[in-house]
């Protein structure tokens, strides 16, 4: 079966993001399903477990995938995408579940064509933050979001100074956000400073979003709004106003 894999943080903190991802994915392919009680991919364990615990946990998750006959997945979290495509095939040589991040999935030509995205509101400049997990993945996702954004009629896309391979980290990965938020206090600010020229800063990682959003509110550095990629896409699909 085809599974829309939500990720732990999105499920816990951003139900609307999950809803929006589902709308997009099902609009493009109705066969994708959302299941309950899906185990998290365990990426946090990479920073907080022993090797043995981690490998045991991954075996449990892999068993769950097999029991549920998962053949294909779309993830909405950058971390799940990186982790599932890097470490699972390393541990299980026969691992052959097709895994895509939502951005990759949307950027496929037939999907982009079907979505035919258009923005009709007032002048809008957008920028995009490359999440480390997408940039560092075995199959990096770097050009896909740019491809999607450049296909949208009516918006202006503007890169930050540090983009693609040179993009900054928001400072919240690797479990650091839970214990040392001070990291994102500094690093997210660097990103927000560079995003100033855009009205909208999009990110495709719920961890980056959490940090960027918090720091943006706290510092009131700019008039830029931080938004999750899927939320933005759904707003375009609905033709609803963007509150920026």
């Amino acid at each position, binding site marked *: 079966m085809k599974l829309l894999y939500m990720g*732990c*943080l999105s*499920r*816990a*903190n951003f139900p609307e993001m999950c809803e929006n991802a589902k709308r997009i994915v099902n609009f493009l392919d109705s066969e994708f399903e959302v299941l309950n*009680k899906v*185990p*998290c991919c*365990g990426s*946090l*364990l*990479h*920073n*907080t*477990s*022993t*090797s043995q*615990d*981690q490998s045991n*946990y991954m075996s*449990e*998750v892999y068993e769950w995938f097999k029991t549920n006959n998962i053949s294909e997945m779309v993830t909405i979290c950058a971390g799940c995408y990186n982790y599932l495509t890097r470490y699972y095939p390393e541990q299980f040589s026969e691992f052959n579940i097709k895994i895509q991040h939502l951005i990759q999935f949307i950027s496929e030509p037939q999907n982009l064509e079907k979505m035919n995205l258009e923005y009709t509101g007032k002048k809008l400049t957008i920028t995009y933050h490359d999440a*480390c997990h997408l940039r*560092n993945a075995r199959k990096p996702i770097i050009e896909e979001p740019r491809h999607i954004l450049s296909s949208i009629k009516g918006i202006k896309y503007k890169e930050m*100074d*540090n983009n693609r*391979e*040179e993009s*900054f*980290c928001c*400072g*919240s*990965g*690797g*479990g*650091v956000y*839970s*214990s*040392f938020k*001070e*990291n994102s*206090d*500094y*690093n997210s600010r*660097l990103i927000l400073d560079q995003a100033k020229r855009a009205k909208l800063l999009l990110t495709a990682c719920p961890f980056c979003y959490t940090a960027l959003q918090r720091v943006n509110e706290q510092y009131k550095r700019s008039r830029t709004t931080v938004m999750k990629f899927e939320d933005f896409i759904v707003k375009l699909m609905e033709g609803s106003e963007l509150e920026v």
Partner: protein
Amino acid sequence: MSDKNKELYDHLKGLIEKIDESDNYYNAFTDFWRIACAAQNSTINTKYKYDDSSKEFIEKYKKQLSDIRKELVNNIEYYVEKTMKSMEKNKMKVHYAKTNEEAHTIFLEELGDIETVYKSKSVEAKDIGILELLKENNITVKETDLGDVLIQLFDYKLPTYQVGPGIHFEIEKIVSKIKEVYGAELPPKAESIVQFFRDTYRKELLNDVKVSLTSANSISAEDGCIVLLENEGNISLLTRATEKHIVLVGISKIVPSVFDALLMTKMVERTNQADLAYISFIYGPSATSDIRAHSVQGMYGAKEVVIILVDDWRTNAIKEDLFYKSFLQCIGCKTCSFYCTASKAFGNVYGSKYGIGAIGILRDYIHNGIEAAVRDGLYLCTGCEKCTNWCPAEVNLAEIMRSLKKIATEKGLAPPPLEKYRQKIKQEKNPFS
């Protein structure tokens, strides 16, 4: 489980608070360091002196350099032997020290009854604990790199950036320190400070140096050459004006040929985007045959060149295939720190006495164990992989840091909030449920 993890966590939180306060060395260093990183991050793409940018240089030579480094790691015993033979042919005196303790003994023997050692910057000397050793033996160490001279002057003990170690001291403070220590009154200008040391210390060094200590940027196995990179000329003086030049260096600095050694050295220079004035290729003691073709050692330069090749953890890391094996490929360029997310946020809170950044933390782990690494800020690392991506020698530092975190978890040293996630994932299959 003990409360050790909590204690370490609180310790780091305390240090991090200092970054936002004012007038302390954490705050002063971090402020400076953030600016340095921003400058470094933007100039790496600019062409300032060469036809290519430093980034283009890295891209062009990364593969070649990494291959050279891997060649050493895969055949380390062969290259150590070859290096020693070539150096002996060059009339250098070569020692191989299996452990740091052996290096200590050899070093003290080589010093004899000398009471003062003039020294250039050396990561190895720190690694091996030479400074502590000399202190215990009442031997005076005189740093010669101006940054290190300042570090000594201020008796500064916190982690710092090896390439410009004293760069965060304010001019006014330097001037008043000079007045306090030397009684000299200087205008608060960089030129005056430099001139002061040129007038006083340079003369003292030239008159007084008997034994000098340096490291090496690289060593070529085929012809036993030591390559040293510098800007101030202190290394040139130290290695020429002395009676005995001692080179204390890890065996991982060896590369097959002198061309490889130059590439390794040039990569350090290019990645630091510093226009450095000198590269020395040292093939042995100074000598002359001008008196009836009779070869005599020690004309104007060093009379003796002594090499102490230190193994310590290195061969073992290869034999045991340890998780930090790729660290042997490190050329010490510090590019990883300039791009490090944790370094930018936390400056010298993130590092150890061996230096700032992940490599400083890894060194502390190698020498002092996992608790030291956690204390240095291991858990400030976000796993962003900037270090691995930028490293010109393919050291997989990000993966090494992850492995360290696993070891720390095993010892119950992970920060309490992370420990909670771990339990939740295990029990509920979701850390945030």
